[in-house]
């Protein structure tokens, strides 16, 4: 059951990323290009995505997931260095190629060699990230 649900969710996510235009790096870079030809499409994508998600969060109150267990608790609102530093690094990379992790997977089948190079580098970054994360957490204490 878990796997079927995950697969269906993945199909919606991947389809949505393609339909929304977020696999087109020019649209993402256009959103970030406030001093150039600014493209507001991403705001429509984010806004659209938040409607079912907000309804889903409302639905979770007093209920449990279909497969059992419990819903993820709201995280401790503590804002550490890792949240800020990580987001700044992510944002810089996001602008550099116009890709974030979801759209990278969604366009892997048709994006050619460039997508695979980006994807491999992203996995490399994810592999070394725990070292930096531990350092930043040490500084927070």
């Amino acid at each position, binding site marked *: 059951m878990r796997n079927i649900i995950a697969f269906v969710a993945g199909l*919606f*996510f991947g389809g949505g990323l*393609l339909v929304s235009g977020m696999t087109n790096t020019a649209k993402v870079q256009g959103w970030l290009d406030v001093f150039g030809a600014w493209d507001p499409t991403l705001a429509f994508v984010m806004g659209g995505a938040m409607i079912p998600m907000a309804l889903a969060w409302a639905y979770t109150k007093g209920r449990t997931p279909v497969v059992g267990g419990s819903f993820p608790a709201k995280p401790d609102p503590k804002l550490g260095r890792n949240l800020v530093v990580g987001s700044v690094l992510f944002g810089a990379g996001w*602008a550099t190629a116009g890709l974030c992790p979801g759209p990278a997977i969604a366009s892997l089948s048709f994006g050619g060699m460039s997508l695979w190079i980006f994807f491999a580098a992203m996995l490399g970054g994810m592999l070394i990230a725990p070292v930096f994360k531990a350092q930043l957490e040490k500084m927070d204490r």
Partner: protein
Amino acid sequence: MHIDYIYGLIGGLLIGTGGAIYLIGNGRIMGASGIIGGLVDKSGWSTAAERIIFLAGVFLMPLIVIQFWERTETNITNNVVQLIAAGLLVGVGTRIANGCTSGHGVCGISRLSLRGIVATVFYIGAGGLTMATLRHVLGLI
């Protein structure tokens, strides 16, 4: 309204529906970087099957849709240095920050998570500054 904004909104609704299915069904947050990163750094190996199957869905749906709808424009750069730098930054950053556009952005903001809102402000801010610097100051991209 520009047709791209309508596609953005429809795609966004699909993305949010995927997130809602994943949350209500499996009780998990649909964050692309967390789902991939957990496989890369072994932290998510206990739920590896669910993660891989989710990612298979994200990969497959666009591949199916493009058979009927030529929506394969990525505008991705073929500059290898740019791709590797971007991939590393996205990989390291999202894992240090514990989330990306889907996890912090879509799933976090829709439950009014302070961490999600702060992360989104920082990655969009850093993305905008990077874009301005690379495109308008240095003229590199």
